[in-house]
């Protein structure tokens, strides 16, 4: 007969059951959904970074158009740092290395860009987004609320990846530290 009395050192039947049950349904679902999200978001930002890197002078024009950076050397720094950060994080997302950190970094960049975009819209400045070159993604033309909405979708995807504690098909799983 198994005693139902537990003490501090005995995990108890409910905790023991939880340990052997594995990840929850939500965790598994996030893990499954996370794969296409990682690939899509990573692919998007790889493309975005590559376009900016290929034509840095175009990106300078876009950054200047926002009229937020007061110093020229900050414009130059942003011109080259932003696309390379995008590429590094995109690569990390795609292969699944430092997955949550890469998604969090992309999320930070999206929040920063959205704040800059809202500032531009409220100041009535006509400027091209400069995010995906001339083609644009879902939105085209001058920077507007459509672009803010477009970035919100990407931010939501990044947030889901960060929320996931288990990532399938990820290189980081080889190192035995899942979900970090």
């Amino acid at each position: 007969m198994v005693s139902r009395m537990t003490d501090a050192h005995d995990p108890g039947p409910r905790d023991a059951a939880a340990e052997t049950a594995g990840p929850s349904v939500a965790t598994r679902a996030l893990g499954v959904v996370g794969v296409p999200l990682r690939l899509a978001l990573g692919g998007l930002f790889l493309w975005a970074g590559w376009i900016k890197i290929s034509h840095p002078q175009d990106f300078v024009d876009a950054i200047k158009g926002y009229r937020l950076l007061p110093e020229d050397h900050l414009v130059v720094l942003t011109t080259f740092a932003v696309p390379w950060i995008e590429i590094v994080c995109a690569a990390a997302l795609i292969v699944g290395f430092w997955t949550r950190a890469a998604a969090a970094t992309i999320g930070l960049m999206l929040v920063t860009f959205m704040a800059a975009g809202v500032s531009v819209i409220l100041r009535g400045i006509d400027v091209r987004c400069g995010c995906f070159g001339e083609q644009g993604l879902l939105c085209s033309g001058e920077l507007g609320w459509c672009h803010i909405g477009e970035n919100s979708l990407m931010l939501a995807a990044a947030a889901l990846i960060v929320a996931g504690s288990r990532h399938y098909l990820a290189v980081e799983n080889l190192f035995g530290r899942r979900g970090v």
Partner: protein
Amino acid sequence: MTCGDRLAIPLRVVALIALGTVIGLADSAFRPVQVRLAPGAAADTEQTRGQQQADAPERRGAETGEPPAAVDEPRPSRTLPEGHIGIERAVELFDEGLAQFLDARHRDEFLESRIMGAHHVPLEAFRRGRTPEVLEFFAFDTPLVVYCGGGDCEASEDVAIRLQQSGFQRIYILHDGFPAWLDAGLPVEDGEPAMEGGW
């Protein structure tokens, strides 16, 4: 997830940003970009002409015996940004007939009204390494006067930078842009250009 795991994410975010920034800085050393018009965009900007006239005040009218032209002479103390010229100098270049005027505004603004004879050369025409077709007809020492909407419009400077990168040596930016030309009652035109050769 342990406390150490939670700390790992911010640290890794910082590491990713640092890595991208370092690579970007290295890239910038090999592929410099231009944020401002480089010095010497034009041999005779407002500053140099003002200084020349300040240095030789007796030259005006002395050679021809005629009174000086009824144009406001640029004052030596007037300071304009690099490469910018005032309306007086723009009129001189227009009257000489050697300068080409380039309109950097949106096409609908260009069609609505523009400096007579101006070509439409917006910044978009230079994107992705392109060069506007009309520039192929101009020698590199052709005086080019770029203008946009005045005020805080920076399109003319951006176009001027691209012109400089393309090899043109005499680039002028009309300070205060098209509104200054219009206010001075100078020649304008509208509609589709007679000779299509913008970009």
